């Protein structure tokens, strides 16, 4: 009998250890909301994904041990995304943020398989019972930065490095132009399309080409810091996008339109924790704290800063809309009458330039 005693005890003890370990991990994991984030590019230290990751960190800070978060970076749009999103859902992530337009259909496919998991997709337009969408009104920030650019330019020529000719990007170019024209009617905006969201080489070339053509304020709707860095080297001004890029252009950057996701992410996580979440299409702007300007450079005169602050306030309280008429299309045809402004539906489908922009939208 004696020789059987030891192995059995060992077996028994190890079984107990496993059971206890299993239970305790369940007990600890029970109340925590696991939140997953899917990123399209590496986090880096500026840009679209970086801003989302700041949002994730804000959730962790605001909600502490009620949540645990996880991100998967550099997930290609297309066949890969569906697997990554599904894996997160399968591993018990109950709230999943998918932060790029190309994740729209994969998110919806996975959402069908996991009806109890809540998905939030950024910049898309398809909703489902457990899929909400969110986006920010980038154009509000664009209008404000346009005012600064219009006041600071000497050559009256502004440059815009743009990614793809989709409504989101075109809306930004138009808002920037309208902002600049509101303070400087002679302004001309030149656009170069680089057909990529992130390509520092092409963004640099485009910026150099614009500067060679006499542009003295550069802005961009791409992900890298190359346009701001090029402006710094060539001694012209720049307006950053996504993140504060003053680190890359301490003399060049006048300000930047930045996205702030932290408050929104925290709000959604709270709603999910309380069980009050509902599928909605959120389009938040300055009012909701989702769009902020980076600190304005000391080179900008005080009266201009004052004007920007005033406009910012009137956008926030709803008394002013950046797309308020009279607005003319590029060919001079009246688009919006004085006193009216474009509706959200018009903005979402925007596929034309306003007056003051040079060139045509690639078809």
């Amino acid at each position, binding site marked *: 009998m004696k020789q059987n005693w030891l192995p059995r005890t060992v077996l028994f003890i190890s079984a107990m250890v496993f059971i206890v370990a299993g239970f305790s991990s369940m007990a600890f994991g029970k109340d925590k909301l696991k939140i997953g984030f899917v990123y399209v590019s*590496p986090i880096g230290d500026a840009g679209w994904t970086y801003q989302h990751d700041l949002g994730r960190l804000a959730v962790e800070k605001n909600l502490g041990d009620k949540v645990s978060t*996880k*991100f*998967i*970076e*550099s*997930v*290609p*749009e*297309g*066949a*890969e995304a*569906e*697997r*990554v999103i*599904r*894996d*997160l859902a*399968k*591993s018990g992530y109950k709230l999943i943020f998918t932060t790029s*337009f*190309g994740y729209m*259909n994969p998110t919806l496919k996975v959402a069908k398989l996991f009806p109890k998991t809540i998905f939030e997709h950024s910049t898309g*337009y398809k909703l489902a019972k457990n899929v909400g969408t969110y986006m920010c009104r980038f154009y509000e920030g664009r209008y404000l930065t346009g005012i600064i650019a219009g006041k600071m330019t000497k050559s009256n020529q502004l440059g815009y490095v743009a990614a*793809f*000719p*989709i*409504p989101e990007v075109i809306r930004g170019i138009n808002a920037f132009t309208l902002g600049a024209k509101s303070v400087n009617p002679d302004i001309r905006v030149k656009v170069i399309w680089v*057909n990529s969201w992130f390509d520092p080489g092409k963004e640099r070339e485009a910026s150099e080409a614009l500067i060679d053509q006499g542009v003295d304020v550069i802005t961009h709707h791409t992900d890298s810091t190359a346009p701001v860095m090029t402006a710094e080297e060539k001694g012209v001004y720049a307006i950053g996008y996504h993140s504060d890029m003053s680190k890359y252009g301490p003399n060049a950057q006048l300000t930047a339109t930045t996205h702030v996701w932290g408050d929104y992410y925290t709000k959604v996580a709270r709603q999910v924790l309380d069980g009050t979440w509902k599928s909605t299409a959120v389009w938040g702007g300055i009012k909701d704290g989702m769009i902020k300007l980076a600190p304005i450079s000391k080179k900008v005169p005080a009266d201009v800063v004052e004007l920007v602050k005033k406009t910012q306030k009137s956008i926030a309280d709803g008394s002013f809309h950046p797309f308020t008429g009279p607005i003319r299309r590029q060919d001079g045809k009246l688009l919006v009458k004085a006193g009216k402004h474009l509706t959200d539906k018009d903005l*979402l*489908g*925007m*596929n034309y330039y306003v007056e003051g922009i040079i060139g045509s939208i*690639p*078809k």
Partner: protein
Amino acid sequence: MVFKIEPRPVPSRQMKYFSPLIAALLMLVSGLLIFTLLGKNPVNAFYAFFIEPVNDFYGIGELFIKASPLMLIGIGLAIGFKANIWNIGAEGQLTMGAIFGGGVAIYFNGSTSFFILPGMFLAGIAGGMFWASIPAFLKIRYNANEILVSLMLNYVAVLILSLLIHGPWKDPQGYGFPQSVLFSESALLPVMVEGTRLHAGVLISFAAVGVGWIFLLRSFIGYQLQVSGLAINAASYAGFKYKKMIWIGLLAGGLTAGIAGVSEISGPIGQLLPSVSPGYGFAAIIVAYVGRLHPGGIFLSSLLMALLYLGGESAQMSLDLPSAVTGVFQGMLLFYLLAADFLIHFQIRLKSTSALKGTRP
């Protein structure tokens, strides 16, 4: 004392087939070392990287979905590589295949005809082969370097896709976003196992491994390709037509890449997007090499490469490692393989300096 590199009189034949295994083993050991240095428990890390991604049916399905295009293209490229025809343009040929096949799906959108899917594949094959025929023609006619031409055409193909997706093929209901309509049911490959994404395109890849094996190892053309690759003068002395080898070598890659492109859009993606491949055309070059240009080897190496991709994602999720870990593993695998191959053909000898002096003229 100095090290001297000398060619081996007779490179070992067995080692040629063992070297991928040695490389994989060294990759594992280095990987575990890296995990340990990063403060991760190497056993957990190993589990997360290599076991967790495939511990259920869905995961195994994903492994084959990911390996399928690599396997298919790897076979096609190996046929060219055997004859020293360097087709670096599989990514573009895949994209062209997706454009041609996707065009059929978009043009007949809503139709329920049985012939749509076969039509897509035929169109995709035509697209892939058309794109591969450009470097073939330019090489034969003007002796243009096929590496450069095929590489550059990758970018052209992706830009053509982008043009179509931003223009005529844009989903009219898509708020101007650059993607096509979702394909109708008749243009999608059937899913073979319920609860996974494993689509019938995987069967095509398996078939390609079989056909590739017969073609490369049991056919006269395969033999001609190999001789042309080993000794071009001997091949022409034997009357083998080098032009024919160029055509076959490049078109085989175009054909398989075209099929892979259609499989992707009619399988896991289900529509045309601005980018249809996360670099399969390039990864397949590594697959073909690690697989020793042998269909059986390519089958195994495509599964290994696919596992590295999946493992990288899983490592992000359970170990908080950055996504770069996938690239590190793939890089190590190729590095060790090249090192092992080098040592098959060369040996490093320790020589005393005096002996060396003696040999100098």
